[in-house]
């Protein structure tokens, strides 16, 4: 029903923009990863695989990537453990307060990422709120210094930030489960526990996968929480990229690492899409 001209008018501008500002930059990142830096700190546009060789040979990059994935995996796990029962509660037990509680999940999302990371810094520091509270009630005589500047602080902060991201898709998936399926399960003699594991949980998997992907991918690429709260043992892969694009001035190597991250992210997205499709109820 729409004319050719109409379709061209709505298609062409976003197509051109997305090509120039998304596709071309990604291609450029790909090209950069094969270039190198000369001794005089200029970028040499000669094609070679040196950056990739360095990534494979030097353990520091592998270790940082593995550490980041381990941090992201913990964030994902804790967000799901906190988020799933809450989403379940909202969907099945909240009754009339459902809308209000749903809004309460969303509000923290509108609070700046930086502000929340900063709040945790003021809580966890050695003269921070938590340590002075513990001393005030005489639970400890001197500040616990493992709280801040540790992977623990990074995992805690990122879990705080990404838990709402996991709650929302899980809640949406739970809300979409036809209630008569659950009634049927009860009528056919299943216990509530059986009904949960055989009916409700399988049908909520697409939401779980979506939430888990969000939490994992966004934590994996984070560099601000580690800078603010991580200390030397909490350095993540993105922090290395930031320094390569800054003081260390090796854009090509930084581009190679970023491209590796992009690859990990895109394959995870692909995987989660497959999983969601496989488990979706239709």
């Amino acid at each position, binding site marked *: 029903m729409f004319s050719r001209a109409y379709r061209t008018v709505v298609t062409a501008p976003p197509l051109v*923009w997305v090509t120039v500002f998304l596709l071309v930059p990604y291609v450029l990142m790909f090209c950069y990863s094969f270039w190198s830096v000369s001794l005089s700190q200029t970028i040499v546009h000669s094609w070679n695989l040196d950056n990739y060789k360095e990534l494979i040979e030097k353990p520091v990059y592998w270790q940082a990537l593995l550490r980041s994935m381990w941090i992201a995996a913990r964030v994902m796990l804790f967000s799901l453990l906190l988020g799933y029962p809450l989403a379940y509660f909202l969907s099945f037990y909240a009754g009339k307060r459902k809308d209000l509680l749903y809004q309460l999940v969303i509000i923290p999302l509108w609070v700046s990422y930086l502000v929340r990371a900063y709040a945790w810094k003021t809580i966890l520091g050695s003269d921070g709120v938590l340590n002075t509270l513990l001393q005030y009630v005489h639970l400890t005589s001197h500040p616990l210094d493992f709280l801040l500047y540790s992977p623990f602080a990074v995992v805690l902060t990122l879990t705080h930030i990404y838990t709402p991201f996991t709650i929302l898709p899980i809640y949406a998936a739970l809300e979409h489960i036809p209630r008569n399926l659950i009634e049927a399960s009860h009528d056919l003699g299943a216990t509530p526990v059986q009904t949960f594991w055989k009916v409700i949980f399988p049908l909520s998997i697409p939401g779980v996968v979506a939430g888990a992907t969000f939490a994992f991918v966004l934590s994996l690429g984070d560099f601000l929480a580690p800078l603010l709260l991580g200390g030397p043992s909490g350095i993540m892969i993105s922090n290395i990229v930031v320094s390569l694009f800054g003081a260390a001035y090796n854009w090509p190597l930084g581009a190679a690492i970023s491209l590796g991250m992009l690859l990990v992210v895109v394959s995870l997205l692909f995987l989660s899409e497959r999983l969601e499709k496989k488990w979706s109820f239709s």
Partner: protein
Amino acid sequence: MSAGATNKARSSWLLFHAAAVFAFLYLPIAVLILYSFNGQGVGGFPPHNLTLDWYRTLFDDGAIWDSVLNSVQVALAAMAVSLALGMPAALALDRAQFPGKALFRRLVLLPLILPGIITGLSLLMLFKLTNTKLSLLTIILGHGTALISVATTEVFAGLQKLDRTQEEASLDLGANYWQTFWRITLPNLKLSIIGAALLIFTLSMDEIAVSFFLIGRDNTLPLEIWGRLRRGITPEINAVSTIIFLFSLLTIVFWYRLRLRTEANADLGSELL
């Protein structure tokens, strides 16, 4: 009888868990606000010497307000860019067929889930190659491009709910595509567009990962705060964070009431029919 008891135990366990998660989500925000009034600085329990001094310091702090002004400009411009491209992108995805459509859809939505560092760095390379000087303009281009994803998803969701017969009727009655778009399509998408605009504005105001790489001489608010955090923490940052929080809260309440009212009107409309 025992089934009822376990059921009750389960629901009270869930209630307890929900309360704990909400505490986890809100406690840091509460601490943040509380210590913006603490005369002794950030930290120290219990807080005492409650004061408004930090807010006074904040209101005299020119650098902060300059950065707020920059952020508002960036957010408004980014909103215009991403809506101007996200709306047609949603229309294209909804009603046009063209080669590479699947790739286009993925590409548009990618920044939504991609860590900001990748979006920021890839654009930095583009600007370096084209010798574009980094400034607020490059941040606008970065935010505008990344947030097309938000505009597209919101407007696309609106289009899915749109009653196609209204547009068909308009075209059958002799209106051209342009008139139909202005008189039928756009008014029906009003709520999605306002929702997208508010969301984009807030996201842009808070954005730091992309801006981090595209910043020129002028700071946005998050980058100004970031710079200060590296030098040490003062309750002035709590004060400005509290104000941002209240502002976001007002935006949500505004949006929520607008939606309720529009939905109520829609219900009323269907009753009249």
